[in-house]
């Protein structure tokens, strides 16, 4: 067992983790970023589409370009990045159990920031374990990172932004998307993404779901069925498609396993994908010295994840005495302002109220514990 000591350890080298690393290392902290993947960047390098929002959030820039810039900044900041490194556990004192190059390490950091992101939800139906049924995110990794087409004829379940964007990218990569299916009565994602797919002639089946997938050794056919207003299937409305791949884009849930191990307090927020850790305005959880950032605090999107990472990095540096309260307050004020913008408007409103209830839960918890707010 080898011991590694550092000021700040960050689990996850995605949007949030890299942003946190940049902020903490720039302030002078000794930073170690750990990620189980061979490449840093988390989901960013899979995003070949242009981001939305304001100029402050690099609207119009493609996701992987944002990832490249962020990575360069992190490299220049002096943060150390361990890739292909598995964090398999965390003790109550926030020491991390780590496997790297077949060696066992224990990482002891003064502050730990968990930015492990989210994982795809799964949906069970007859045939859902056949090879060829996969998460939309998995399909996106295959085409945009590994450059392998998962199949030729694809049915996408779920019309949120992930379902829409991945459908379009699958088409760009040369596959036929035969249908987009969603149980809800409306298309879930942005109109601009849906429009591109519609114009390409892909039929949308709203108020439909998958009845079953059939095939001998792999997916050969998928049968969909219409559902009523209570999401109950309506017999006689089945339609069958010949496909070799079925992608599931039915939401994400936060990867909170490490955080649970510390005894951290959680609350349940469906809009955020399930159980999420309580945290305060500095992204610090109910476990002193343990910070969270990005989708692990509740599923949102890349820009919010980067801002939460910035916030956690600044707060950790401040707690280490590397930033004066005035310097930190100025930086945090700017970041919080940008976060407010990201959580405003028609699509941001739901996330804003979810985040407010999460922060309120933390305040209630601290009050119960007799701590300061």
């Amino acid at each position: 067992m080898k011991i590694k000591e550092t000021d700040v350890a960050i689990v996850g080298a995605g949007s949030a983790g890299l942003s946190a690393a940049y902020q903490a290392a720039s302030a002078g902290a000794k930073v170690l970023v750990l990620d189980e993947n061979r490449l840093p960047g988390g989901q960013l390098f899979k995003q070949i589409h242009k981001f939305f929002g304001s100029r402050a959030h690099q609207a119009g820039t493609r996701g992987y370009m944002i990832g490249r810039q962020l990575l360069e900044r992190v490299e220049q900041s002096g943060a150390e990045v361990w890739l292909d490194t598995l964090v398999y556990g965390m003790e109550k004192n926030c020491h991390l159990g780590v496997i790297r190059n077949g060696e066992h390490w224990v990482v002891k950091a003064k502050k730990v920031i968990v930015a492990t992101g989210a994982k795809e939800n799964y949906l069970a139906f007859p045939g859902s374990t056949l090879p060829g049924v996969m998460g939309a995110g998995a399909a996106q990794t295959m085409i945009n990172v590994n450059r392998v087409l998962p199949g030729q004829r694809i049915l996408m379940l779920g019309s949120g932004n992930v379902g829409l964007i991945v459908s379009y990218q699958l088409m760009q990569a040369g596959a036929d998307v035969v249908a987009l299916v969603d149980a809800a009565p409306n298309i879930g994602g942005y109109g601009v993404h849906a429009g591109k797919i519609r114009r390409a002639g892909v039929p949308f089946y709203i108020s439909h779901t998958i009845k079953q997938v059939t095939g001998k050794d792999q997916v050969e056919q998928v049968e969909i069925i219409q559902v009523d207003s209570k999401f109950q299937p309506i017999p006689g409305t089945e339609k069958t498609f010949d496909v070799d791949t079925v992608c599931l884009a039915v939401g994400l849930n936060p990867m909170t396993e490490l955080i649970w191990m510390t005894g951290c307090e959680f609350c349940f927020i469906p809009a955020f994908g399930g159980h999420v850790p309580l945290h305060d305005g500095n992204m610090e959880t109910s476990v002193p010295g343990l910070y969270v950032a990005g989708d692990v605090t509740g599923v949102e999107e890349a820009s919010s994840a980067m801002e939460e990472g910035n916030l956690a990095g600044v707060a950790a540096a401040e707690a280490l005495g590397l930033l004066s309260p005035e310097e930190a307050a100025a930086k945090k004020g700017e970041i919080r302002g940008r976060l407010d913008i990201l959580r405003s408007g028609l699509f941001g409103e739901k996330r804003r109220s979810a985040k407010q209830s999460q922060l309120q839960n933390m305040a209630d918890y601290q009050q119960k514990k007799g701590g300061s707010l």
Partner: protein
Amino acid sequence: MYDVIVMGGGIIGCSVAWQLSKLGKKVLIVERTDIASGSAGATDGVVGYHTKKPGPQLDLAVQSIEMFKTLNEELGMDVEYGLEAGGIQPVENKEQWDMLSAMAEEQRKSGVDIRMISAREACQIEPNLNPDIYGALYSPTGGKVNPLALTVAFSRAAKKLGAEIMTNTEVTGFIIEEGRAKGVVTSKGEFRADAIVNACGSWAGKVAKLAGLDLPIKPRKGQLAVTEPIGPYLTATVQCALYNVIKFRPETIKDQTVLKLGSSLSIEQQESGGLIIGGTREFVDYEGENTFEAVETMMKRAVRFFPALKDVSVIRFFSGFRPYTPDGLSLLGEVKTLPGFYMAAGHEGDGIALAPITGKLIAELIVTGKTSYDISDFSPNRFL
């Protein structure tokens, strides 16, 4: 009003409650959290002879293991008992060989088939075992069980016969009248009975203290791992020789880490395909966390004896407490200074194997005042 109140809804308490119910007694189980939430829900299911201390403990195990053969039928539930799984203890050097040979000779006095075999023979029985060993101890009989299923089966069978079970109910004191135990005070009120059984496992010492009894049962932590399900890999239950050395001859161990963690290998494959890998024996009060030190020690030990495991994923680490006693024997019987108060606890790592016989004998003692098998060696009064 109940005939008997059993404190503790673990494998021992539920076994006692079932046996008492079979004898027509009205039983109440009072459980602080939930059925099988203590040791039985956090252990492997080894039911072997060779890991038992020679003498009374092994004699008792022989009686108990006999009972396992008919449990499925009697309880009306599959408890995943594998009768002929067998047990192997790989030995690493001559010193261990001599120690286990001497122990096996003592153990054979209880009429069990336990013998020393060569490394080659051991690998013929378990082909995945590392051939780089000095030899092995082998016990062809004995097996494994799903301890969680067995505890639930005991509790359901008891309930069917009229027993009542109160979970999330903590014992906070006792009703003692004219020097006799007459009932329990709990977080959900007072309940009276003619006899009270302390089957609180690793917490039995604490509970006894509420009745003013000072009994030396201490919690001993065991850490374990469970792997992803894999194909058939292991039939026998395997405990490395250190397992018995730590259990019976700790004074011979020089490595301080091994001594502190009490770390040895105990491994079995469950019916579902997952391997349960242990373990440690640590005195850390009720601190139940897994530690990185133990994780490393256990995994190295597992790969030492089963090299192919290096490519198998562990899906979870967990831990449980075992009720330790200074002389390695459980406490079974009525407390002389407090009539009506019975002990059925302190089995340490043998509780799963000894659960059936413990239930039977304690029930006999309460109902008839005597037992069909002499348990005077286990009397709690030896500590009073």
